[in-house]
């Protein structure tokens, strides 16, 4: 039973229920207390020790039902011998020596199931990771059970002819049933151990996918990436949402210490230190929404909007030829589709960084104060217009930090109409950002600067 439980833990982990070694030990202790006799009690008790959230409880129950489902045992292979007499009748003598042949012909379901479990262990079926391995593992499982013997017996029986044919037909049918059962068994193992891993593999790939890839992003991937961005944002938000009071060691709060000491006749028993409250970031995001950057802009906005628990204030602006505030659009539409609304309003103009910065300086400069982090997303390709470096310099002076995210690699920054190398001087950070992974890392850096060490 030890191995069965270990396999069960692995299946749980595959389903994203976290089972640490300590929990595994607890589970073993649980089983010692409750035993296996009462299935419901066994399930509830294990559930209490292993599943730690309401969500995990649902997943636990699904895995439990699949894992401890032994329906297939109740399917004896249809090998009932016709009439009375020896089930092995008509088969060549080597059939007597094959355990598998005897079990098949006798229709011994329980013994077959046991043999299959043992063979599965030898064939390491539970190590299955990908759906493409199913056919191969089924084959190996059957071989481990001794399929080659059966084939030999079949061939020999066919050679005998006469009564051998009838026996061979029955054995053939039993072999087919066994193959179906083995395939169902492997399918179940796949469902238990591998259904999640394919998805995880795909997500890892998407996190590194270039956002300005030729031909854009597949709509199927798009949905998955949106979900991924939201999850990344949730992870960061969880980490930074804790309001911490960071003690300023060494700075005595004299006033509060004196006040506290009153209760003890002026003796300063309680020493109070000054603390500093961690302020939440306030962010101004300025996104280029020209064709080459639009996808990245969409994910950046999704990311920032999903961070609303940890971000104090978020103002978003979009530009190509001119700049507009997109706060209103983002409030009215779900973030996933808001970018299309924005494109409807200002898309398909010729990109002009200088004009856009002018618009910003005229209308929205008051949005920036010394608490604000400005995140600019764009390729800095301004079609040879005046880049208005002076405005960016003003923004830099007024803000806490200016971060420029450029989807292009650094080697392109001074080529053609790119003025990135000139803008770069006025940025605290200028980075290539072309995958979700890079995006996550940069946003985390921004959040971290607000937490004093």
């Amino acid at each position, binding site marked *: 039973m030890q191995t069965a439980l270990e396999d069960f833990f692995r299946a749980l982990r595959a389903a994203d229920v976290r089972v640490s070694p300590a929990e595994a030990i607890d589970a073993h202790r649980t089983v010692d207390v409750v035993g296996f006799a009462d299935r419901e009690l066994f399930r*509830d008790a294990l559930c209490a020790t292993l599943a730690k959230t309401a969500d995990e409880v649902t997943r636990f129950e699904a895995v439990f039902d699949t894992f401890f489902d032994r329906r297939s045992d109740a399917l004896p292979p249809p090998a009932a011998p016709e009439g009375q007499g020896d089930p092995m009748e008509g088969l060549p003598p080597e059939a007597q020596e094959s355990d598998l042949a005897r079990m098949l012909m006798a229709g011994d379901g329980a013994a077959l199931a046991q043999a299959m479990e043992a063979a599965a262990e030898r064939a390491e079926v539970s190590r299955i990771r990908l759906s493409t391995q199913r056919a191969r593992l089924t084959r190996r499982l059957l071989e481990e059970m001794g399929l080659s013997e059966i084939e030999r017996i079949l061939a020999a029986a066919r050679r005998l002819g006469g009564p051998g044919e009838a026996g061979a037909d029955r054995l053939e049918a039993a072999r087919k049933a066994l193959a179906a059962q083995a395939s169902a068994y492997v399918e179940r193992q796949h469902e238990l151990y591998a259904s999640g891993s394919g998805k995880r593999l795909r997500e890892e790939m998407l996190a590194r996918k270039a956002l300005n890839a030729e031909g854009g992003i597949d709509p199927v991937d798009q949905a998955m990436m949106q979900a991924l961005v939201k999850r990344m944002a949730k992870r960061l938000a969880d980490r930074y949402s804790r309001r911490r009071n960071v003690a300023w060691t060494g700075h005595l709060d004299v006033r509060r210490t004196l006040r506290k000491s009153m209760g003890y006749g002026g003796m300063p028993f309680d020493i109070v230190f000054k603390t500093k409250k961690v302020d939440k970031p306030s962010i101004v995001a300025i996104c280029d929404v020209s064709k080459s950057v639009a996808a990245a802009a969409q994910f950046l906005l999704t990311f920032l909007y999903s961070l609303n628990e940890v971000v104090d204030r978020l103002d978003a602006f979009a530009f190509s030829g001119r700049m507009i505030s997109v706060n209103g659009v983002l409030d009215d539409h779900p973030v996933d589709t808001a970018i299309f609304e924005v494109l409807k309003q200002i898309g398909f103009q010729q990109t002009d960084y200088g004009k856009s910065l002018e618009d910003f300086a005229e209308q929205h400069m008051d949005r920036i104060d010394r608490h604000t982090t400005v995140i600019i997303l764009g390729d800095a390709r301004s079609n040879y217009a005046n880049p208005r470096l002076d405005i960016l310099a003003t923004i830099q002076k007024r803000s806490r930090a200016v971060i420029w995210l450029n989807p292009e690699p650094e080697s392109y920054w001074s080529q053609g109409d790119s003025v990135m190398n000139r803008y770069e001087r006025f940025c605290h950070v200028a980075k290539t950002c072309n995958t979700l992974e890079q995006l996550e890392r940069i946003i985390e850096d921004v959040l971290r600067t607000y937490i004093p060490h």
Partner: protein
Amino acid sequence: MTSSAEAAFDAAQSPHFASIDALVSGLDEVGYIASRRIATSLYMAVRLQKPILVEGSAGVGKTELALCTAALLGLPLIRMQCYEGLDESKALYEWKYGKQLLYTQILKDRMGVALADAPDMDAAMDRLHGMGDLFFSEPFLEPRPLMKALQEPAGCVLLIDEIDKSDEAFEAFLLEVLSAYQVSIPELGVLKAETAPIVFLTSNNVRDLGDALKRRCLHLHIPLPDAALEKKIVASRVPGIEGRLTAQLVDFVQSLRGLDLRKSPSISETVDWARALILLNADALDGEVVRDTLNVLLKFEQDIVAVEPQVAELIRQAEA
């Protein structure tokens, strides 16, 4: 074996913990109608000596479970309400500063007499070291709920209510108490529980709890009950209520939960409502009575406004 393990063995030996069924009926006697899953979790918590983390929306009986367990076992209940800013001086222990102050003054007065006949400084220092250092000692310790729970000689039920309202740091500080049933006091060393208490933590999911804390606990999620269970609960909590009214009001509440409300009524609201109806001498639901008492059931003005026009329809459904 340590003394704590033996003593907790006694709690597990109580006849109520002989089997799940015994526990269900035991809880029933003290007025808690437990589902099998709840009873299993409690049973495992006592058997494995682990704290139990109870989650669920407000009013499903999380706190009540702890109260009833204490009543069932005849153990004292020590309750600690968590809130933001709760720290160890309020949860665990504090020094009795005033008495410590007096002690130092007495010490100062006596010191001259005690050291008067010492020939030189070294001898005086030796004598000083020879005296017991009482400044940081147990008589000057003011125990707070957690420590009180560890000091109960016969064990107790410790209820740490709304752990999700406390700070991250406090949660980390609880880990030692919860896994080893001991506390470390820097000045004194480790104090270990004589008898491990039965610990309940409740959470409303205001924030996600840390994995370390979750790992140390058994997890129990109490969902809103189904109609049959809720009827049993109302009948047990509101003695003297008629079966027909119970059925009617529970069905009404159940259908309310199907609506899109800001706060669905939970068990405690159902029970309160049943009591209110008894006080008003209502023997059946009718539109007027329901509209008058809707504020017992629903806690937001917009919910009441949304439900009011549907009351007649909902009563018809409940009767069907």
